[in-house]
């Protein structure tokens, strides 16, 4: 058999035989789904965290909020995601009949929130201090200045970084098979198990990750360039 035919045969077995490509695509859809909802949850929790940290830094009375936020972040960053995922899975699943994918979204969402909070803090910090002073000196409240003046500018710094966080999550969720979720990596492993050949299905999974990461990175830099252009208006 020629080299090419051999490769084709392996590819055929791993991807086309028994409509396995459907399983791959479904697995990849699951990967994207988990990442997407995790990023949404991460943003929701990250906003709360960022507000807590902002209040703690700017108002003496709110210091305890900052401590709570810091403990939360320390725990998240100080323990492996995989262990967190297993803990959440057994915590939720053994108690109720909730699908494993929910545990996955919860885990990666909580994890992401620590990074999102940091992204938001940095985005706000990058807005010139003079903007807050100008707003306050006009008699606007701190809240109103934040809402009408600081945040619209901060969002321009924050959005691209959130896109990046989504891309990071797509790769990080590859361990989610550990709690029985059929993501693309788990599908590749299953195919490997039934063929006794792991390399080809794993390469296929890797290629799918790579393709989407490259596409999303491109889209993101286009988006950033458009933002930069509207900045110069």
């Amino acid at each position: 058999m020629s080299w090419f035919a051999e490769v084709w045969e392996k590819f055929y077995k791993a991807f086309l035989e028994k409509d396995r490509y459907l399983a791959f695509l479904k697995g990849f859809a699951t990967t994207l789904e988990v990442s997407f909802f995790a990023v949404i949850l991460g943003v929701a929790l990250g906003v709360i965290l960022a507000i807590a940290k902002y209040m703690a830094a700017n108002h003496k009375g709110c210091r305890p909020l900052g401590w709570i936020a810091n403990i939360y972040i320390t725990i998240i960053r100080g323990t492996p995601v995989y262990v967190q995922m297993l803990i959440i899975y057994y915590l939720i699943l053994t108690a109720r009949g909730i699908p494993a994918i929910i545990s996955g979204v919860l885990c990666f969402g909580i994890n992401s929130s620590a990074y999102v909070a940091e992204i938001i803090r940095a985005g706000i910090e990058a807005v010139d201090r003079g903007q807050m002073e100008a707003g306050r000196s006009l008699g606007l409240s701190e809240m109103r200045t934040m809402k009408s003046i600081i945040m619209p500018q901060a969002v321009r710094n924050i959005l691209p970084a959130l896109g990046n966080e989504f891309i990071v999550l797509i790769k990080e969720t590859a361990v989610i098979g550990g709690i029985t979720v059929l993501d693309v990596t788990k599908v590749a492993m299953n195919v490997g198990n039934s063929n006794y050949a792991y390399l080809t299905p794993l390469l296929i999974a890797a290629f799918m990750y790579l393709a989407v990461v490259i596409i999303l990175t491109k889209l993101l830099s286009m988006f950033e360039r458009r933002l930069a252009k509207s900045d110069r208006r």
Partner: protein
Amino acid sequence: MIDVKNLHKSFGDKLVLDGIDEHIEKGEKVVVIGPSGSGKSTFLRCMNLLERPTEGSIIFEGKDITAASGKELNRIRQKMGMVFQHFNLFPHLTIRKNITLAPVKLGLMSQEEADAKAMELLSRVGLPEKADQYPAQLSGGQKQRIAIVRSLAMNPDVMLFDEPTSALDPEMVREVLDFMKQLAEDGMTMVVVTHEMGFAREVGSRVLFMDEGRIVEQNEPGEFFACPKDVRLKEFLSKVL
């Protein structure tokens, strides 16, 4: 209008204002000069409580505002316009929005009223055609005139200027000073930190010299520049004149 009593301000253990007593009358144009780091900006920023005094009090229109906070503080600041060295226009908003944001959000005017006021003020500085442009499209001198207009839209009782022309190219200083002079002639109460001695002489009703957190000498401008008494003021004037 503004009474400053025994004002002290420290940042950490660095004493920046070391006991300032000053009274600013309605309609006065007080010019503050002094070397870099002498506390001019801090003095100005204490008046509208952008900085909290460490000791002493600020009395504005008969009321002690030193401990004001929340809504009360916001109401006081509406009456004290402030103009910054770096303009601090809102880059994401059009000029019109820059001017109308505060009066509208604070419920002082409807959007239509505010728009009309903005156009009137813009015509006054000769920039009505800029209403729908963004700050990035303007020159420094135009930006600073718009920043002054933004403050004026709130109908303040007093205007505080912190080196309004220091960040400008020389050829743009004139247009900003001319507008400030107009304001002065219209009777606005003004406190101006500046290095423009010509402006101090021409427009000031009183000139204060600050050094190391104190007002070392003050006088009406003629006398102030003609026969300065303090050694440090003499030295300072010999450098800037």
